């Protein structure tokens, strides 16, 4: 039962932080090297876990549980009452997320070679951020989850505010305030549950709240449950983001350094989806079913809203930002369907969008390195100067607009498959989004890569050295999932069967 495997996995970046702390500020090469290497142990361990699971290892073996703190003096009554454990664990879903996080972290670390100054602080914060993200997906109780959730907040604030582009401080603040509010709401939910049930363990909560006449310190009425679920929706709605709560995320996408945005839109946004599925759907199934329609509607709104606005953006980063909103809409659509197909679609979308947006933003950083602009009006004909980059950019766009044979399609397809069963009309409306996605992505990408090329971009260099790794790995994974989705669906079987009305 008690292996320290996960603790090692989650805390391995700490080693890097310590190392960096004792390195001179100026040794650029060394710092970057250490920064990248420090992300590798986590990746290795995560992949190891994945393969040994494929090899038939039981995920429960990875669980670990240590008494952490006990509020009040209820020890005599019941040692578990109001006790918080330090407990990590894995299930199919979190396993996937951990692998995704670890891999993306390593790639983003590579992408961070584009960072120009103060690498030391950068990589220390970067690694701290990774710890937070890994922890979020392995935490087995709400309070621990929240702890890691907030740990991601601080490094992000600094990474945006210090290494970002022109409006970095503003972006950092709106990130801070929005997510602060989000996590504030989340904290209330967590504490209400904890205070009323005396436990914060997710599994225990599932049991307590969904069995008639469970012994609770204070009863939890259905209306309270509904209230909590709505609060959860808001809390994770900020992260995801859901329509009216999204403006912070645009700023972050535009202002933060691309390597960070890779992680941000690749993993951090996904925490929202993870939370909704894990807690919203897991702990309040009935209430979730009641809200399904609302969620599906929100999903369609996100999908269309993002798509239409992406259509008129002139900054490529902005296009990608809105496309993230739009794609998160698909996650919501899948959840709103609230049946196996939908939920699996949503989870697929979480992973696949993670990979795709990471790829696109990496290419953005490559692009920005060379042409120092992302405004599509100033760009054009880059396929001449940098055919490979252009080609991968196009591939990424294709993946993102749901081209079969790439991961985007599978998730999109399943999400809609699910929704068409429950609410065909709404789904049909949503399909407009599929068309719009193609419209805005081609508009943007073709404007950058095709067309007459300005001679000023004639001499620029194409992908080189370390820049190959992220591109190839990401494309590889995207295609792999698209062609052989079992790599994802297989770990999810148990979960998907468990969830969903």
């Amino acid at each position, binding site marked *: 039962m008690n292996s320290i495997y996960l603790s090692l996995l989650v805390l391995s970046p700490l080693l890097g932080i310590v190392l960096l702390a004792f390195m001179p500020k100026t040794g650029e090469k060394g710092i970057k090297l250490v920064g990248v290497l420090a992300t590798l142990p986590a990746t290795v361990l995560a992949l190891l876990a994945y393969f040994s699971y494929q090899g038939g290892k039981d995920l429960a073996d990875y669980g670990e549980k240590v*008494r*952490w*703190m*006990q*509020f*009040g*003096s*209820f*020890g005599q009554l019941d040692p578990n009452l*109001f006790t918080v454990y330090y407990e990590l664990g894995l299930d199919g879903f979190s396993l996937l997320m951990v692998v995704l996080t670890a891999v993306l972290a390593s790639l983003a670390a590579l992408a961070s070679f584009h960072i120009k100054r103060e690498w030391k602080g950068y990589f220390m914060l970067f690694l701290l951020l990774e710890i937070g993200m890994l922890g979020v997906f392995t935490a087995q109780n709400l*309070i621990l989850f*929240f*702890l*890691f*959730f*907030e*740990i991601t*907040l*601080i490094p992000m*604030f*600094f990474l945006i*505010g*210090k290494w970002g582009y022109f409006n970095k*401080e503003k972006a950092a*603040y709106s990130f*801070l*305030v929005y997510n*602060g*509010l989000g996590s*504030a*709401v989340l*904290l*209330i939910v967590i*504490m*209400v549950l*904890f*205070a*009323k049930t005396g436990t914060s363990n997710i599994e225990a909560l599932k049991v307590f709240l969904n069995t008639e006449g469970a012994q609770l*310190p*204070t009863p939890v009425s259905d209306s309270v449950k509904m209230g909590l679920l709505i609060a959860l929706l808001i809390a994770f709605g900020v992260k995801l983001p859901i329509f009216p709560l999204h403006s912070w995320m645009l700023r972050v996408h535009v202002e933060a350094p691309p390597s960070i945005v890779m992680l941000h839109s690749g993993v951090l946004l996904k925490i929202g989806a993870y939370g909704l599925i894990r807690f919203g759907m897991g702990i309040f199934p009935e209430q979730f079913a009641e809200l399904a329609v609302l969620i599906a509607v929100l999903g369609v709104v996100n999908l269309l809203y993002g798509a239409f606005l992406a259509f008129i953006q002139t900054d490529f980063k902005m296009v990608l930002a809105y496309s993230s909103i739009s794609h998160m809409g698909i996650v919501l659509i899948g959840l709103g369907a609230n049946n196996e197909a939908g939920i699996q679609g949503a989870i697929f979308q979480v992973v696949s969008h993670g990979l795709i947006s990471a790829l696109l933003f990496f290419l953005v950083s490559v692009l920005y390195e060379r042409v120092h602009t992302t405004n599509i009006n100033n760009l054009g004909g880059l396929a001449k100067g940098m055919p490979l980059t252009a080609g991968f950019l196009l591939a990424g766009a294709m993946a993102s607009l749901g081209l079969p044979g790439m991961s985007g399609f599978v998730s999109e397809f399943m999400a809609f498959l699910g929704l068409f069963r429950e609410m065909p009309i709404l789904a049909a409306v949503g399909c407009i989004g599929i068309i719009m996605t193609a419209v805005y992505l081609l508009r943007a990408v073709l404007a950058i890569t095709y067309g007459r090329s300005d001679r000023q971009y004639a001499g620029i260099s194409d992908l080189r050295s370390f820049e190959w790794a992220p591109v190839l790995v990401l494309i590889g994974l995207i295609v792999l999932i698209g062609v052989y989705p079992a790599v994802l669906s297989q770990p999810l079987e148990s979960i998907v069967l468990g969830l969903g009305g």
Partner: protein
Amino acid sequence: MDLETLLSFEWSLMTPEFIVLIVATLLTLLDLFLPKKFNRNHLGWIGLAGILLALVSVFGLIGRDPGSILYDTFRLDSFAKAFKILLLAGSALVFLLAIDYEPKEGRGEYRGEFFYLFLTALLGAMIMSSSGDLITLFVGLELLSISSYILAGLRKTNVKTNESAMKYVINGSISTAILLFGMSYVYGITGTTNLKAMAGMLSTVSDPQHLYLLGLAFFMIFVGLSFKIAAAPFHMWAPDVYEGSPTPVTAFLSVVSKTAGFIIVIRIMLSIFAAVPTGDEGFPMLFALQDYIGFLAGATMIIGNVVALRQRNIKRLFAYSSIAHAGYILVAFTAMSYVMFDSIWFYLLAYLFMGMGAFAVIQLITAKEGSEDISHFAGLYQRSPVLAVTMAIFLLSLAGIPGTAGFIGKLNIFLGALMVNPSHYVLASIMIATTVVSYVYYFGIMTQMFFRPAAGLARAEAAATVQGEVPAARRRLPTGTTAVIIICAAATILFGILPQLAFDFLQSNFNQFIDFMQ
């Protein structure tokens, strides 16, 4: 009473108080008779030693069953022990700060007072924490107050200091008057000043008029006390006084004196008004009036956090932030849950470290810059990364970010507010919302430290750092302050990661404070 009754008392219960008293007197005499050129800082070390000794003696007393002497005017119960620890630890840190404190005009002739007045104030606070009688409570309170009035005004030649002291005295006296007026009514109804006896009498009160009178008394007392904890409606003195006073004194006011304030609030409110039965089923008055306290708590949190947004002077900003924290603690008091004592105690502990640490850094910076404007924190990260990072730790803790003691404290308070039935959803929401507001100004300071380039004098230094010279911030770091910073940072993180250390200490030694009322 004759000698043997006097001797029959278990004086050992008062050991800590005696130690402090003796050291205080000692310092007074030494200061009086030692030659002028004698460095008074040694007095500071002596005082510190005394405090630590007292602290040890308190730990020594922990095992003791609750006892009381002098006809119940002095009682030593779990509550007293637990909170004395806070008071003593706080004062010890203040002393470390005070030893290094050096105002522009020098500390001239009043160095000595500077130390032993802290001790007398501490003594007052300790008396409060373990007094079983209104009179002793009052005396303790005044001992604390008057000493702190003088401390606040100690820099005689400094206009700001005079002003702050003046404001402190006048507001303080008014609050005292209101408090006493309330007390006098309670006395009138019970005919005794002994808390236990009062509780006994009050539990039988049934005459609605008397209840009404008690209600009035309740509000007077609460408002009177709200002065000490700097909570609404009696909070407005805090910013001016904090700004004007010498930094160690500010630290003392915002940490030790605030703790003392909560001690007396709990003592009086709980032992008097929890006993009064109201309504048909004898619902305690305190619970009946919860909503008023809640209202004040909410107001305090909002005012503190919202006004802090606009502050440029660092000490003023911390004054508002400490108002806000008083509000948070009041939430715990409002809820009256099982974990009330734990949560208040733990929060005060956390606040002790993060607040004291922050003030230590402030003292360091302001002493060097000669100005208290936030902008002087600009570029601190370049000048001395360590200092910047520790400050960041304190700020994060104050903002209640996980991984720090502040977070656990807030968690504890939430738990209390939500576990009672009916839960205080509104209050909890206000608390969390204002916390988010507080992010803005706490992170504002961080923005200065980490993002902004250093300005003026600091820039020169930053440049110096670049050329590899040792910057002033790291040059001759004063021992006391450094010690405070290190201790506080360590404790803040420690109790953030392993709060169980503190919880175990509470749960195993104080047995849920059940002996509070006996």
